[in-house]
């Protein structure tokens, strides 16, 4: 199986040809927005946390890895210039893999107006550079698909998640890569997951990284919502039940590894197959996690919500007949009615993934996107709870 993509200098292959403006601190986001105004395919990634580096290395690592994502043709990295996250820290590693990257601070560039003016010049150059890439035929082993759920209801566990799991198995059989995440929503599924590993190291990772999530989210005396009231009104009683439904979208293939994102490193899939990951259960941030792991497209199951991302297209799958509207790319409600099988819907999703990889737009691509949320683990909490990554 093949698809038509944009081959980047490092050998990865994009399915979109975007210019990314990375604002390394929130103070220069206004400048970034003004620079982007009037251009197509120029998108923004902003660090809203802080302009400080210490304690925010996970965010720094993700900004770098999103810049390296193959859907990005080239980058402009900007900073106000008074913080400690120097734009070069983000720009240099992206340059190293052969991408065209410009970099500037507002202070050194003569202030806001001049920076916007200069930025627009850079963008024009980046667009010219992006236009030198043409789609060419490449093997599906260059395709990485993220799978995620959101706005889950009963139909997710019965219809959309099983059909996405079916798609995941088929993509892996064809030679592609699929990444699942949301470890918090795999609580209670450890035994099932371990059955799918080939070595103890991966099994250990599964157990300890899920345990880390459990510890992070269950602090005695705090009323933390780990599944929404809407989930429960829809029929989900416990997190384990939600997990078992969510597990269905992970298919049944061997789990190659659990990809981690943290203050020290961001893993990448090293060969095709199915991977778990630390991709957050929070949708906005999950798309950025997936992008950092190198995914070019996300398949997202839902009741009827319209989650979308500007860098990596999102294919929405729903089995809830009452909530399906024209945001939904794949209708899995036939499974709920007993008139269509899981495998048949799985085939439709595989076809849609390849079509979208070839350049076909999803139903709401370009209409409305969630912000590129840079979700990170709070290093103070990690230290207090003594949580560690696994090397």
């Amino acid at each position, binding site marked *: 199986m093949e698809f038509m993509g944009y081959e980047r200098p490092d050998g990865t292959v994009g399915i979109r040809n975007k210019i990314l403006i990375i604002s390394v601190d929130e103070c220069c986001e206004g400048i970034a927005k003004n620079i982007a105004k009037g251009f197509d395919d120029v998108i923004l990634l902003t660090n809203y946390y802080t302009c400080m580096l210490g304690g925010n290395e996970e965010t720094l690592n993700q900004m770098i890895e999103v810049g390296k994502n193959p859907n990005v043709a080239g980058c402009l990295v900007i900073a106000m210039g008074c913080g400690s996250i120097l734009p070069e820290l983000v720009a240099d590693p992206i340059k190293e893999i052969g991408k065209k990257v410009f970099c500037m601070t507002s202070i050194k560039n003569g202030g806001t107006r001049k920076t916007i003016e200069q930025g627009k010049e850079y963008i024009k150059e980046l667009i010219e550079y992006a236009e030198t890439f043409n789609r060419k035929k490449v093997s599906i082993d260059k395709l990485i698909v993220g799978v995620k759920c959101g706005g889950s209801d009963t139909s997710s566990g019965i219809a959309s998640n099983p059909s996405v799991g079916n798609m995941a198995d088929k993509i892996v059989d064809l030679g592609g890569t699929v990444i699942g995440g949301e470890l918090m929503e795999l609580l*209670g*599924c450890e035994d099932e997951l371990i059955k799918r590993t080939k070595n103890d190291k991966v099994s250990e990772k599964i157990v300890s990284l899920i345990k880390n999530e459990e510890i992070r989210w269950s602090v005695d005396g705090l*009323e933390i919502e780990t599944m929404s009231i809407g989930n*429960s009104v829809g*029929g989900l*009683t*416990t997190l*384990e039940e939600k997990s078992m439904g969510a597990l269905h979208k992970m298919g049944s293939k061997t789990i190659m590894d659990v990809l981690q994102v943290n203050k020290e490193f961001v893993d990448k899939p090293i060969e095709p197959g199915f991977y778990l990951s630390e991709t957050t259960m929070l949708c906005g941030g999950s798309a950025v996690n997936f992008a950092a792991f190198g995914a070019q497209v996300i398949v997202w199951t839902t009741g009827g919500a319209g989650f979308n991302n500007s860098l990596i297209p999102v294919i929405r799958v729903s089995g809830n007949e009452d909530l399906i509207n024209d945001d939904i790319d794949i209708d899995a409600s036939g499974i709920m009615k007993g008139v269509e099988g899981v495998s048949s819907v799985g085939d439709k999703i595989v076809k849609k993934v390849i079509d979208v990889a070839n350049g076909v737009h999803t139903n709401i691509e370009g209409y409305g996107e969630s912000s590129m949320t840079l979700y990170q683990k709070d290093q103070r909490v990690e230290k207090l709870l003594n949580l560690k990554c696994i090397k």
Partner: protein
Amino acid sequence: MKKFILMGEKDIVATALDSMLKGDMAIVLSNDNEEMYSIKVNENIPFGNKIALMDIKKGENIIKYDSVVGECTKDILKGKLVHVHNVRSLRVDIPQSFKNEIIKEMKIEVEV
């Protein structure tokens, strides 16, 4: 006839594919959409929620997808709704205030 679906062979609960009213007779389907047997509904059960397929005692595990998905906190009679008012998570439970909100929103009758 209204339908419930069973997600695993060992399950002791089934999921409503229609909104059920107390007194309804409904069919329980297997995961492959085969009709298995009928059951009398003893409490209103909204679409997507679960019915007890047998009497379940306090302390027993709730089995769905052939897996333990929680623990029974109050005896549940066959035909009744199985939800946050009579089941808790064995891992990270929903805080009581959220449970109260869910019970209120769904108008679940809770015996004191």
